């Protein structure tokens, strides 16, 4: 599947296109098919997202998994600071993204 990710212009937080807006959670990412460019152009212009781009991902049993490790780390947080990730309570979270 093809999904969109970027950063919130004001806060810089990593966000994922969920079909109607931008979510903080990669799990919410929606498959955009061929609409990537159109959505990116519209959302960037409206400043609802910054520096956004389309990536490949797959839908696994545990949810949406970006193809590249970089985006998986973006989706979680720094692997060396589990306390600062989006899943501080999940001991397996780091192992799952790398």
């Amino acid at each position, binding site marked *: 599947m093809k999904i969109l990710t970027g950063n919130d*212009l004001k806060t*810089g937080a990593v966000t994922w296109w969920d079909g109607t807006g931008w979510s903080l959670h990669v799990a919410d990412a929606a498959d955009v098919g061929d609409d990537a460019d159109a959505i990116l152009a519209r959302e960037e212009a409206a*400043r609802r997202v910054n520096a956004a781009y389309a990536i490949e991902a797959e839908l696994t049993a545990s949810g949406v998994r970006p193809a590249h490790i970089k985006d998986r*780390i973006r989706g979680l947080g720094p692997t*060396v600071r589990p306390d600062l990730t989006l899943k501080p309570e999940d001991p397996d979270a780091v192992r799952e993204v790398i």
Partner: protein
Amino acid sequence: MYQYDHYDQAMVDARVAEFRDQCQRRLEGKLTEDQFKPLRLMNGLYLQLHAYMLRVAIPYGTLSGAQMRALGNIADKFDRKYGHFTTRQNIQYNWIKLEDAPDILADLAKVEMHAIQTSGNCIRNISSDHFAGAAADEIIDPRPYAELLRQWSSFHPEFSYLPRKFKIAVIASETDRAAMRLHDIGINIVRNDAGELGAAFYVGGGMGRTPMIAPLINGFVPLDQLITYSEACLRVYNRYGRRDNKYKARVKILVHELGAEEYTRQVEEEFALLIAQSIEPPFAELERIRTYFDEPAFDADASDELDRTDPDFAVWSDRNTHPHKTPGYVSAVISLKPVGGIPGDATADQMRLMAELAEQYSFDECRVTHTQNIVLPHVRKADLFALWQKLDAAGLGTPNLDQVGDIIACPGLDYCSLANARSIPIAQQISQRFHANGKGEILGELKLKISGCINACGHHHAGHIGILGVDKKGVENYQLSLGGSEAEDTSLGKITGRGFDEAGIVDAVETSVDVYLAQRQDGERFLDTYRRIGMEPFKEALYG
């Protein structure tokens, strides 16, 4: 230490107002991201993997207690209670909001700090020897020259859209503690036969994709021509540096392609024209700046004795101090490399503690080293034990300066959007491994440096052992190199051969270290043994 007068303050304040306005225009949509990006970069604001990252300048690595405290307070107020000290003697905050950035700059300006030109294709923060003003072996304190260059390069209208970034280091001793020849311009303040001071200019060094050691282009520029000569070096670069390929845009490529001799000739020609323009600051300005770097009031009767009764303290003081030019004093190095920790990270509380200790024990001064540690430059030997106890209690007393655990690591794929692989976990594992197996204790000096991509922020080319993260079809992979040095015997490491995965690279480092342990002769460091026996024995052991 240098202190702003009302001119310096007004300039920094104007910059805060300018950036506030630019941020506002970006948020209102008057600036596109393409237009805004170079502006925010020139204020140190990146968009990184998880958020905006703000890089704050620490000119020539020198900080007062109040400044260090302010850095800690910013970490609390605007970030997640920590910061990361970098190989360019700066500090980075990883979790910044764009809307907060102008307020952070305003807080910095209150303590005479800024983020000016900490990124972008302009002249970056000037770096220097972290023992400046304290080292027994220096000719003179290099920082007044660095400060003069700071002022000259700040908002320089001609050199704000260079082909690429431009880094300058200034030192004034034979021992190079600032990787001077791996900068775009390395300046070494020297004395000629007549006893006069001048500046030796090395131009075209750098790491990155094409590492190069800067050649000497002028062995003695009189100090009353320092700025004019720098301007000539920059103008030739601005006009003729390549702009067609970002990987070939640094001045090292220009110097390499033209040849050092031809580049020098062009600089001299430009210099001859510029000198007629009288752009050099009045010499009185250098004298004015110099007065701020006068020696603190050292106690002439300070005892040169050290009570070494406590064995842990004795180890720390042997490893983590550096000789001071004044009897009875040492420079103490606070390691930001606890075993298994994140190299260069310090919590807000640690920063405030270091601020307090600088005030109490080191004439209100501390320094950031390019090896990502903190120096208290002027500590009385009589105070050293008390200082160590406080550091140790706060997790800042690791006795590993220049040892295998004192690893330089860039943020890598945990934070950096350019990274190919993670650096920090590798550093953590190596540090833990050598701590657990006890080998760390017997290795002596071993400089290990890790970069998460070819940009080489972790100085891997210059590591006795260097590690470079690469992307192997979407999987992290690590190249090993041996034999680099950033000291006065500057050399570039050589790659051993095919790369390793995460577990493999940690083993490979240990294998290399074992070759050294088996082969070392009396007093040899890892680097010395490598230079004597060459790459083959290491290759044999690694790939057999």
